[in-house]
């Protein structure tokens, strides 16, 4: 098919695809899935951090956390807009999320149990997210790539803030150090899982990479994340909860243990520690908010009618 070949050549040459351009149905479908899932992750991702906003230890920490979840909602907004250029509405995506037809990152199905988790989420979870997102600034779909540029700038800021919390905890009291270690213990493997299973087992990988929707293999990114994070843990005086971790001179990176992929598939299947609560919270918010959305629409319609009548 010459159209399809021309499309692929344009991508190979580093060109951007824009909303009005022709694109293969699979490209469109995969992008909607991927951008939508990313957007949903920003939205659901507000909840584990929102869980500590009301318990933030200082006014400054509360302000920083508020600003962060506000950014996340903003990222959600950019991403939903990017997905909407592909012919799906935000409400359709919300409904797909609420009904379990669309996913969000499995990491947000883990609970935040102490203040140190606010540090660990920023340091590890945002850190892992950035590994994924930085290359996506060069993704082939224009609106997605441009959204990523804005998002990456803020995410790296969030990661630094998370690391700053960890530094404070690790320089603090015994209880704070214990909290920090406990947070690392709980978030280490779930963070590794964020990159997805080894590419051999990943369904969408080869075609997505050809289309430049996916820029690196899962294993590449995971390795990069481990290589970046292990020295940071050492700097903090924390122990990565993996006894097998060891520098491998030959490959120029760390050897490390695989996460428990059974747990990963359990979480995907809905059996993560917080799947039910996270989704229930969003559904409840959506249902409780119906009268507000309807009221606003009705008022906007009245205003339009009044304006037309006045013209």
């Amino acid at each position: 098919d010459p159209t399809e070949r021309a499309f692929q050549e344009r991508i190979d040459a580093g060109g951007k695809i824009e909303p009005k351009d022709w694109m293969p149905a699979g490209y469109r479908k995969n992008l909607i899935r991927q951008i939508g899932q990313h957007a949903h992750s920003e939205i659901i991702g507000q909840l584990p951090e929102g869980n500590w906003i009301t318990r933030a230890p200082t006014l400054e920490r509360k302000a920083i956390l508020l600003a962060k979840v506000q950014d996340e909602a903003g990222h959600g907004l950019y991403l939903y807009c990017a997905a909407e250029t592909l012919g799906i509405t935000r409400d359709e995506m919300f409904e797909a999320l609420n009904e379990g037809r669309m996913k969000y990152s499995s990491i947000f199905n883990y609970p935040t149990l102490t203040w140190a988790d606010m540090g660990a989420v920023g340091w590890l979870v945002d850190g892992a997210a950035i590994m994924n997102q930085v290359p996506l600034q060069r993704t082939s779909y224009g609106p997605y790539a441009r959204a990523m540029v804005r998002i990456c700038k803020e995410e790296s800021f969030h990661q630094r803030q998370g690391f700053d919390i960890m530094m404070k905890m690790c320089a603090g009291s015994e209880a704070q150090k214990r909290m920090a270690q406990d947070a690392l213990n709980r978030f280490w493997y779930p963070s590794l899982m964020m990159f997805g299973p080894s590419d051999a087992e990943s369904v969408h990988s080869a075609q997505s990479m050809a289309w430049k929707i996916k820029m690196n293999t899962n294993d590449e990114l995971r390795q990069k994340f481990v290589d970046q994070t292990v020295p940071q843990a050492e700097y903090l005086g924390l122990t990565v909860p993996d006894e097998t971790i060891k520098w491998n001179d030959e490959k120029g990176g760390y050897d490390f243990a695989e996460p428990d992929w059974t747990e990963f598939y359990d979480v995907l299947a809905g059996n993560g520690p917080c799947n039910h609560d996270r989704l229930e919270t969003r559904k409840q918010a959506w249902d409780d908010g119906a009268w507000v959305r309807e009221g606003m629409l009705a008022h906007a319609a009245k205003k339009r009618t009044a304006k037309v009548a006045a013209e």
Partner: protein
Amino acid sequence: MDNASLFQCLLRFGDNTLVLGHRISEWCGKAPALEEDIALANTALDLIGQTQMWLGYAAEVEGADRSADDLAMLRDVWDFRNILMVERPNIDFGHTIMRQFLFDAYHHAQLTALSRSSDPRIAEIAAKSVKEATYHLDRSAETVIALGDGTDVSHAKMQNALDLLWPYAGEMFESDDVDAQMAASGIAPDPATLRDAWDLRVRDTLSLATLNIPEDNFAHKGGRTGARHTEHLGHMLTQMQWLQRAYPGAVW
């Protein structure tokens, strides 16, 4: 004018923004629409920022080696000086936005007056804050109008919110000795003098929202003097102050 009165006055400013900011922050991730999530987080952020300034100055005035965080995190209910309205639970988005509007209309008038305070520090904080309050007021008024004049359901919910909150509005205009001292020295306006501007704005907006202002002007009080808060504040503090209470002296 004595320092103790100025301290009380600053606590009243700072506790209002602290407690309302906290309430608003409870919405995180649960608003009716993404735009509202962002707007609520933004409002909470502004209010917490203002709290840092007010309580920071209060701590200096007190001169008892306490910080803004100490004031926020280590006082028990009886030492809080916010009005009762801001500690009311969120209940639903209608109550939240109605409370916000009733407060914003007051806050805007108050900060406008405070930006002319004889105390340069207060004038400076107010000048910074009034820009935020203007934006908050525009937004909450707009939302109250949209929902009051929306569907029958949204109208009923907004009327219900107004009826419930109205008895908590009067406390904003109460005066006592502290206020008298502040007014006499040009530091802060007598709250009673803010009522006309508030009335005008509130009546105008609620009329556009097709909502009826309750006729009974009974006013609950006891928050800004600390004499009698609601039961809700204590529950809020169990969350707000948890970490500082559980790990005293730790640095975060």
